[in-house]
C-alpha cells in the first residue's frame, strides 16, 4: 500500500516536471517571438512610453463636447447634440451612398460567384481540370484585399464610387464563391442523379436539382457578405473610391476632432442597424425551408 503511494508520488512528480519543462519551453519561444516582433515593428519601450500619453490625449480630444443643460439646443449653441452633428444631413447621405455601394458590389460579386461555384464544387464539377481552374480562380479573387483592388482601379476608372464598387465586387467574387462551393458540396445528390437519369444535361441538373436546395443558404451568405461589405465600403474611400471614407479621411487628416467622433458614431449606428436587419432576414431565409 505504502509502495503504491510512493510510486504514485514519483510518477506524479515526473509528470509535473515534464509539464513544467514543456510550459517553460513554450513560454520561452513565445517570449523570443514577442521580442523579435517588438523589435521589427519598432515597438520599443521608449516609443511606447512616449506614445501612450499622446494616444490618451488624442482619444480624449475625440470625445464630443456635450453639456447637459444645452443638450437639445440648436446648431448654434456649443455643447448641444445638434452642434456636434452639425453636418448630419451630409453624413447621412454619404452613409446611404456607402450602403448602396456595398449593396451593388455584393450583387455584382454574387453573380460571377454563382456561375463559378458549381464547377468549383468537387461533387458537381464536370472534370478535374474545370474544377481546379475554377477553384484557383476563386482563390485568386479572394486573396487580394479589396483596398488593394481599389488602389489599382482608381487608376483606371478614376476617383469615385465606381472604383470602390468594382473593388469590393472583385473580392466578393472569391469570398462568396468559396462559401457557395462548400454549400453545393454538401447538397443532397439524389435529385441530381434523378435529373441526370431523366436525360437532363449538366446545366439543367444544376438548375433543377441543386439550386433549389442551396438557394436559402446562398441568400444567407449573400446577406452576411453584404454586412462585411458595408464595413469595407466605409473605408474604401480612404484611397479615393467613394463613400463616407473620403469624408472621414479628410476630417482625420485635418484633425477636426469632434467631427471624427460624430462620423464614427454614425458609422457604428448604421453598421449595427444593417447587421440587425440582415440577421433577421437571414434567419427568415434559412427558416423558410426547414
Amino acid at each position: 500500500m505504502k509502495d503504491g503511494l510512493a510510486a504514485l508520488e514519483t510518477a506524479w512528480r515526473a509528470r509535473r516536471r515534464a509539464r513544467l519543462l514543456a510550459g517553460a519551453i513554450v513560454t520561452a519561444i513565445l517570449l523570443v517571438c514577442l521580442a523579435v516582433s517588438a523589435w521589427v515593428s519598432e515597438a520599443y519601450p521608449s516609443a511606447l512610453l512616449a506614445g501612450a500619453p499622446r494616444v490618451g490625449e488624442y482619444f480624449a480630444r475625440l470625445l464630443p463636447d456635450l453639456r447637459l443643460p444645452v443638450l437639445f439646443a440648436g446648431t448654434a449653441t456649443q455643447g448641444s447634440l445638434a452642434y456636434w452633428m452639425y453636418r448630419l444631413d451630409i453624413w447621412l447621405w454619404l452613409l446611404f451612398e456607402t450602403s448602396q455601394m456595398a449593396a451593388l458590389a455584393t450583387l455584382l460579386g454574387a453573380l460571377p460567384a454563382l456561375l463559378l461555384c458549381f464547377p468549383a464544387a468537387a461533387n458537381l464539377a464536370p472534370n478535374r481540370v474545370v474544377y481546379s481552374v475554377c477553384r484557383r480562380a476563386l482563390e485568386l479573387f479572394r486573396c487580394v484585399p479589396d483596398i488593394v483592388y481599389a488602389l489599382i482601379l482608381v487608376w483606371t476608372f478614376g476617383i469615385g464610387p465606381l472604383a470602390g464598387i468594382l473593388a469590393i465586387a472583385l473580392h466578393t467574387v472569391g469570398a462568396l464563391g468559396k462559401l457557395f462551393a462548400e454549400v453545393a458540396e454538401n447538397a443532397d445528390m439524389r435529385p441530381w442523379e434523378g435529373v441526370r437519369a431523366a436525360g437532363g444535361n449538366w446545366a439543367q441538373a444544376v438548375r433543377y436539382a441543386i439550386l433549389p436546395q442551396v438557394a436559402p443558404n446562398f441568400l444567407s451568405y449573400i446577406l452576411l457578405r453584404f454586412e462585411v461589405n458595408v464595413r469595407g465600403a466605409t473605408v474604401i474611400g480612404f484611397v479615393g473610391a467613394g463613400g463616407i471614407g473620403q469624408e472621414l479621411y479628410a476630417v482625420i487628416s485635418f484633425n477636426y476632432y469632434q467631427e471624427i467622433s460624430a462620423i464614427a458614431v454614425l458609422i457604428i449606428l448604421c453598421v449595427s442597424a444593417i447587421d440587425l436587419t440582415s440577421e433577421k432576414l437571414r434567419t427568415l431565409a434559412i427558416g423558410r425551408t426547414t
Partner: protein
Amino acid sequence: MSDAATVARLRARFPRAFGRPPWQRAAWALGCVAFVIWLGALCAWFDITPARLSRGVSGLFVILRLMVPPSPGAQWADILQGLAQSVAMAFLGTFVAAAIALPLGLLGARNVVVNALAHFSIRRVFDGFRGVDQLIWALAFVRAVGLGPLAGLLAIAAAEICVLAKLFAEAIENADPRQPESVLAAGGSRLLAIRFGLLPQVLPVLLAQVLYSFESNTRSAAILGVVGAGGIGLQIAERIKVRYWDEVSFIIILILITVAAIDFLSARIRRTLIA
C-alpha cells in the same frame, strides 16, 4: 384527342396547377420593375456608363499586361522588411488584444457576470466597436503616434480586442458549469472557481480563436500601410503611386505566399492544441 389539346384543356380547368396565382405573379413583376429602377438610379448616381466601363477595363488590361513578369525591383530589401513588419505587427497586436480581451470576455460572459444589465451593456459595447474598421483605427493612431508600424500595431490591437472579447465571452458561456460549481462546493472562492473550474476548460478553444485572429490579422496588417501605418501595405501603395506594376504584382505574390505559410503553421498548432 392529342396530347397538346389535353394539356390545353387541363390548363384551362386548373390554372393554379400550372403556375403561380395572379397576385403572386404581379408581385414578382413589381419587384423586378423596382429592382431595375433601383439599378438604373444607382448607375445614374454613380456615373456608371458603358463608355466609362470599357475605358476602365481596357486600362485594367494594360496594367495586367505590365504586371507580367513580376519583378522584385531595386528595393527588394525594403519589401522584405515591410513583410516582416506586417507579420510582427499582426503577431504582437493579436497578443496584446488577447491579453486585454481575456478579462473583458470574462466580464461579458453571462455565467461569470450574473447581472443581466451589466452583461448586456458590455456586449453591446463590443458589438458597437466592431463596426469600426481596422483602417479607421490605423488612421487615428497614425495621427496620434505618428507614421510607422507602431500605429498599425495599436490599430490591430484596438480593433481585435472587441472581436476577441465577444468570441471569448461566447466560448466561456458554452463551458460546462459543473466544474466551477464543484470548486465552489469544495470551498473555493469565485476567483478560484474561474481559475480552476472554468479556464482549463475554455483555454484550448480560446487559443484556437487567437490563432484564427492572428491569421486574419496578417491579412489586414498587409494593407494597414496604405494609410501610413507601416508594413508591406506602405510598399505596395508607394509602388502603385509610381506605377511600378511589375513590383506590385511581385509584392502581391509575396503576400499570398506569406499568408498561406502562416495559415498552414497556425492550422498545425491548432490541431495539436485541440487534440
